[in-house]
């Protein structure tokens, strides 16, 4: 009796494990599959793509698309430059704002810390919306074709402020008190006692901010008219649109665009624009996992 029950138990958990492994493996494959398609497509000859479509393996290996990209790389290098610039500047300024404010609202002896927290939190409940922000930026702040329009919107995020507050709260108040007793001023305490202890928080929030800047295309679409100011993702988007439009016009006009490897070129562009993120990913993943976990715990 006892024995048969035990066997039954282990078969049921065996079934569970089979389902678990299969499901998780499938999910992982689904997540990675588009990337494989993208890379293999970018290394396939245009001729083959046109007749056979995209597959998981390059049907007919070709580096033609990359050849074209690297023959005239100025545009891409420039877009990389813009993206790196807004990412670095925006992340730095964002960290500065977020960390200092998080410190203030976690100081228990500051009378207005709750009022101040709500002042920031309220902007997540209610905001001016897309239209008035757009008009404000363009007509009143004159930010058209100004890189500030790409930096300002992502600089301050209340969600990151709350995560940072959780990090600040791990700093023992005794340290702040003893700093005061030693005669250190508030700024000294913040910059030489608290800030060095916030390295994990700075790394986490800094990476969230950087990811937001790096992946931004939307603000560029709204505020950038000049191609020289396009960040990488928007450059990628506009190239996808242009070649699509080109192919459409060409086919409508009865012209064959046979000489332009448009499909593989677009795929290769996407690879060039995404490569750095995917390569960096294994190194930064743990910070994001930490940030997501901290953010999910209500503070």
């Amino acid at each position: 009796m006892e024995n048969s029950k035990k066997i039954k138990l282990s078969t049921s958990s065996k079934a569970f494990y089979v389902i678990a492994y299969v499901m998780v493996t499938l999910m992982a494959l689904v997540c990675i599959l588009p990337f494989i398609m993208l890379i293999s497509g970018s290394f396939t000859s245009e001729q083959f793509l046109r007749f056979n479509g995209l597959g998981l393996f390059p049907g007919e290996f070709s580096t033609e698309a990359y050849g074209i990209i690297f023959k005239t790389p100025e545009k891409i290098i420039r877009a990389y430059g813009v993206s790196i610039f807004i990412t670095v500047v925006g992340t730095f300024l964002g960290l500065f704002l977020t960390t200092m404010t998080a410190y203030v609202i976690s100081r228990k002896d500051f009378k207005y810390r709750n009022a101040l927290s709500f002042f920031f939190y309220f902007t997540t409940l209610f905001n001016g919306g897309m239209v008035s922000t757009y008009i404000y930026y363009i007509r009143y702040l004159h930010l058209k074709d100004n890189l500030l329009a790409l930096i300002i919107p992502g600089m301050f995020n209340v969600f990151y402020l709350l995560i940072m507050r959780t990090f600040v709260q791990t700093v023992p108040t005794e340290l702040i008190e003893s700093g005061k007793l030693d005669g250190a001023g508030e700024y000294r305490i913040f910059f030489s006692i608290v800030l060095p202890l916030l390295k994990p928080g700075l790394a986490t929030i800094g990476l969230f901010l950087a990811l937001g800047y790096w992946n931004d295309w939307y603000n560029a679409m709204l505020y950038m008219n000049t191609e020289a100011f396009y960040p990488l993702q928007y450059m990628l988007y506009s190239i996808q649109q242009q070649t699509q439009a080109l192919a459409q016009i060409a086919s409508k006009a009865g012209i064959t665009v046979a000489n332009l490897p448009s499909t593989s070129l677009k795929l290769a562009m996407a690879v060039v624009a995404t490569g750095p993120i995917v390569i960096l990913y294994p190194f930064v993943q743990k910070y994001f996992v930490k940030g997501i976990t901290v953010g999910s715990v209500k503070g």
Partner: protein
Amino acid sequence: MKNGRERGRKEGFREEWKKNKPLFIMAAPAFIFAIVFLYIPMVGLIIAFKNYRYDLGVFGSAFNGVDNFRFLFSSGTGWLITRNTILYNILNMVTSQLLAVLIAIFISEINKKIFKKVTQSLILLPYFISWVVVGVFVYNLFNYETGFIPSIVAAFGGEKPNFYGMPGAWPWIICLFNSWKWTGYNSVIYIAAITGVDSGIYEAAAIDGANMFQRIWNITLPSVRPTIITMLLLQVGRILRGDFEMFYQIVGNNGQLYNMTDVIDTYVFRSLLTSSNIGMTAAAAFYQSVLCFVIIMLVNTIVKHIDADYALF
């Protein structure tokens, strides 16, 4: 009496300022930032009640009552985009949370460390990819000429499906990519909740002879329930907000799909850049901002009443 309290408050401020002046100064940059870039644009919401003209600006343009709203809803657009936004949010909320909970339970139960690490990394990878690249994926998976899926169907001798001519397929495609992008992120949250369970409870259950399914049903699921509720509440608060980047990059400028795929945010964005009727666009944005606020306040009040622990603020 009132005067006295007022004076007291003023003195309280002065005292606090004297005591914590550096803290005020440290909070000032973010405070000014929020005023200038987050609070001032709220004033612009009045455009919804105006016949906006660029040359006259926000304050110079004439009021036209609720005309903008009347146009928005009498054309049918207002209802359509509201319906789409709500239905998409419900569909995406249910599917992505369900999938995330399932994956989190599976990954937590699996003991093989390397398998766990590798699959978890792969599942989180889509979170890092910009929606532009996701748009490239979608186009190359589904387009008729070279798309991955039509090509496979053709290779097996079937008739090539033309997805861009089938509006009905797009809610599912959008739902699929929403889950694709967010399952990793959400499952990290659920895994954290499951890991937080005292392992002693599991040991006790094992001694009592609970099998795996009983254990998951009676211990794991109840332990993630608060997280599920919080996540759902956050989503309900955003039920009138569409994930603009997702919709815009997946659907693109394919006008024949708009009936099935246009949400408030994509409509506002498109008409902002292309239409001359800013007033009607502003009406849609106003309607979204205000209703969202009302819904969040309502949900929070109700939840506070039922169980204060789950209140969002």
